[in-house]
């Protein structure tokens, strides 16, 4: 970590977004993670994505659980309310927060320990409920804060810093999310900002649960020979199957693409994701095929990245619950109870 405080002075020529805000306006506290941590690159990508979307900071809610990944919500968007809950239980807090006010954008940052071990149940059920939120899983295959134990995403045969070999099958968050009915499933790499930024933007605008599994190497405990989540290994086995470009609703579609290789997907708010397919046989709108493709590539030792699956047709939690369009936390009290006359009416049954 760095011990230097962020300077308060800003360069007058910093580029501004539609709201007149600079990237600095989307920053948070100074990171206390190790220098070179993949999570800090993700933080930078989040800042870039928020700035690019011109989101007002107060429109955003940041949530996390416990662990290195969960600390990162403090490192971006200091103008947004943040909630650092208990280990593995961020999805339930996000569910409740979203239930109370569906007008805000929710971004949850979790890790492989938080999502796939202690919080696997909550992760699964938030997907089933299709809570409208962006869920980032900063995945490094290791427990950092407790000094290097394997996590549930550690691959078979991967070695810990102490030389121990993992023999248990890993949980793949993308395969899990696919089987649970996830409506937006992506994978990326902390070092690939060009891929990650549009994915984060598309995920935030997706109406429903958007999950991005981000391979984010741990420089201290999992960046050595024998680890399958080291920088070197990830770069060597990185397989971009589909590239996503995010186009806000008010922007003209200017991304150039070769015909037959692209697939524009319309989002709920009128924005579009343009998927540039690098593998011709890949279909990111077909759940079964996506699952099979991912598994095949995993067997070959390759991490498929990009937008793996997207469906904009599934109802989110509020649609399923048929809740009113007004945020529940903003309903006037008069609308919530029928008064003394109503009570007398109700009690007739019990007299």
């Amino acid at each position, binding site marked *: 970590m760095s011990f230097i405080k962020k300077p308060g002075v800003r360069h007058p020529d910093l580029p501004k977004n539609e709201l007149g805000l600079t990237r600095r306006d989307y920053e948070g506290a100074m990171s206390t993670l190790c220098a070179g941590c993949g999570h800090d690159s993700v933080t930078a990508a989040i800042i870039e994505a928020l700035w690019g979307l011109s989101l*007002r*900071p*107060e*429109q955003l*809610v940041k*949530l996390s659980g416990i662990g290195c990944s969960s600390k990162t919500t*403090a490192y971006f968007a*200091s*103008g*947004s*309310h*943040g*909630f*650092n*809950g*208990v280990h593995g*239980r961020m*999805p*339930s*807090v*996000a*569910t*409740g*927060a*979203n*239930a*109370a*006010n569906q*007008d*805000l954008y929710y971004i949850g940052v979790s890790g492989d320990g938080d999502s796939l071990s202690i919080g696997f*149940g*909550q992760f*699964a*059920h938030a997907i089933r*409920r299709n809570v409208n939120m962006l869920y980032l899983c900063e995945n490094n295959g290791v427990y950092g804060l407790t000094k290097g134990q394997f996590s549930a995403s550690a691959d078979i045969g991967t070695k810990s810093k102490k030389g121990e070999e993992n023999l248990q099958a890993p949980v793949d968050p993308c395969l899990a999310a696919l089987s649970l009915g996830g409506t937006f499933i992506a994978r990326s790499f902390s070092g690939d900002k060009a891929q990650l930024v549009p994915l984060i933007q598309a995920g935030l605008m997706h109406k429903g649960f958007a999950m991005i599994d981000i391979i984010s190497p741990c420089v201290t405990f999992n960046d050595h020979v024998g680890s399958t989540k080291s920088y070197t290994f990830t770069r060597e086995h990185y397989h971009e199957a589909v590239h996503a470009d995010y186009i806000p609703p008010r922007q003209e579609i200017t991304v150039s693409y070769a015909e037959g290789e692209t697939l524009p997907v319309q989002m709920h708010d009128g924005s579009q994701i343009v998927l540039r397919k690098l593998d011709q046989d890949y279909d990111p709108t077909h759940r079964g095929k996506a699952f099979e493709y991912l598994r095949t590539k995993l067997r070959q030792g390759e991490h498929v990245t990009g937008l793996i699956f997207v469906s904009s047709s599934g109802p989110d*939690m*509020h649609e399923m*619950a*048929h*809740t*009113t*369009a*007004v945020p*529940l*936390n*903003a*309903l006037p*009290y008069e*609308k*919530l*109870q*029928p*008064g*003394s006359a*109503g*009570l007398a009416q*109700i*009690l007739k049954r*019990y*007299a």
Partner: protein
Amino acid sequence: MAQPAATQNRVNDFVIKLANVNGTGSASANTLLMKSIFRMGIPVMGKNYFPSNIQGLPTWYEIRVTKDGYVARSGRVDLMVAMNAETYSKDIREVSTGGFLIFDSTWPRSTLLARDDITILGAPLAKICNENFIGVRNRILMKNVMYAGLLAALLEIDLEVIRQLLNESYAKKQALVDANMKAVQLGYDYARQHLPCPLPLRLERMDKTLGHIMIDGNTAAGLGCLYAGATVGAWYPITPSTSLMDAFKGFCARLRVDPQTGRNNYAVIQAEDELAAIGIVLGAAWNGARAFTPTSGPGISLMNEFIGLAYYAEIPAVLFDVQRVGPSTGMPTRTQQCDLLSCAYASHGDTKHVLLFPANPEECFYMAVQAFDLAERLQTPVFVLSDLDIGMNDWMCPELKWDDGYRPDRGKVLSREEIEALPKFHRYLDKDDDAIPYRTLPGVSAKAAYFTRGSGHNQYGGYTEDSAEYQVVIDRLLRKFKRARTMMPLPVREGSGENVFGLVAIGSSHGAAHEAMDILSKVGIKVDYLRIRGFPFTKEVDAFLAAHSKIFVIEQNRDAQLKSLLTLETPVEKSKLHSILHYSGLPMTSKEIVEAVLAELGDARRNAMSA
């Protein structure tokens, strides 16, 4: 103590116990009986003792007809309706001397089980049923309705009242009304022709139930949540709290659907477990909705980690703990007051929580509303400690009232204008010197943003590992808890206040304690009684404990949890407290309190005289 009088000429003052098989429709017959008595203007108490089972195991229902309006069990059984052959031998033993037993004489009962100190009456219910109804299911159901008719004749229940109730229950299904009424009539006619009608135990119309309702505590609490303006409910189904959320959902489905859009002005979320249920509540409450979760002891155990977070990060939440018998899975369909300590100090580290103790469904309603006000005013979890007896049994209560001038106390939440007027917002600063900080809601202003965390934080809301900064916050939390003392509902006092001996009880032990006081008074023992209604204990509790030289602490658990809490949280001298404990899983009776007090005072009096 004098032996209880034999069962004779007990007008409007006796106990009926009905032994049934679970899942045979006996519940509707029993409710019909109780409600009929209530409609005749006679105070009545009903308790359902049911198994953790869907069909087949024994179940009992106890109806106490009580002209004096007592709400507890008396400990007697004057009339046993023995419909379950499997439990017959146990049931017959329970009948008080001089009492009656009714059984289905379609099949002969072994004479070995006869008692000569009670009257045994047989009626061939199954036989009559088979002659008059078609279909196995129908016959089973109607046999139960038929004993209601039998009792109508024996006890002089008004048949018109029964007909009216059936009409209300099956409003749109005339065929059902007719079939049920036919069964009632068959039972009634048989009794009139073959049995000694009326029995010496019988009913006479009164006017003591006017302005009253019969309602269960879970329904009343669910209604309270509606009136409190709760919009988010999250839960994981668990006996005996399930009907609370069912009730809330039912009321919402009728009263919270927007007439214009047809959309719901509420969200009920069935979580994957109790950990998620409380997480959802915290997320929603943090985000400005009134949110709650109903659960029971095992659920509280699971919620502990989040409860600590809510305490430390100061997030309002309302938890209904409808207590059942523990430890572990315990006896899910039996009642106890066994979660006092696990709620008062829930979660690791230094925590103390606000508890409310409703004694009946009426208080479940009012305290539900109060719980939301307290939770938001104090920015902390508030527990409403009901129990299975209150939650799942129908109780006679004064009609619930609503003050249309009520407005929810949302506590110290800053508005946009207030935030803009501030130089800087600090989440945990004790600005008003009242130990309660200000909070802001997401979405209002970037200036008001703060980071909520269960990790060490200073009064400005920043992360800290600094000892002094940590202590500033944790010490203020204790001051806040002390301040809560002034906001708790006051205890209810009975007695002159001049007596040497005192009784103390909470929640559903009240009925038995109150009646015990009357009984003791009749044998010349005057006591004062204090019913505590909240924790932290108010100064009135301290004063009562100080003013009495011997205090009987009445509660429904093995380990004297209320006594422990009093010892820990008041200046009372421990040796003054004497426990009366009941933890069988059935609601407490007044009789056991009277016996315990007499046993203890007998010795005390002897000692006093010899001194």
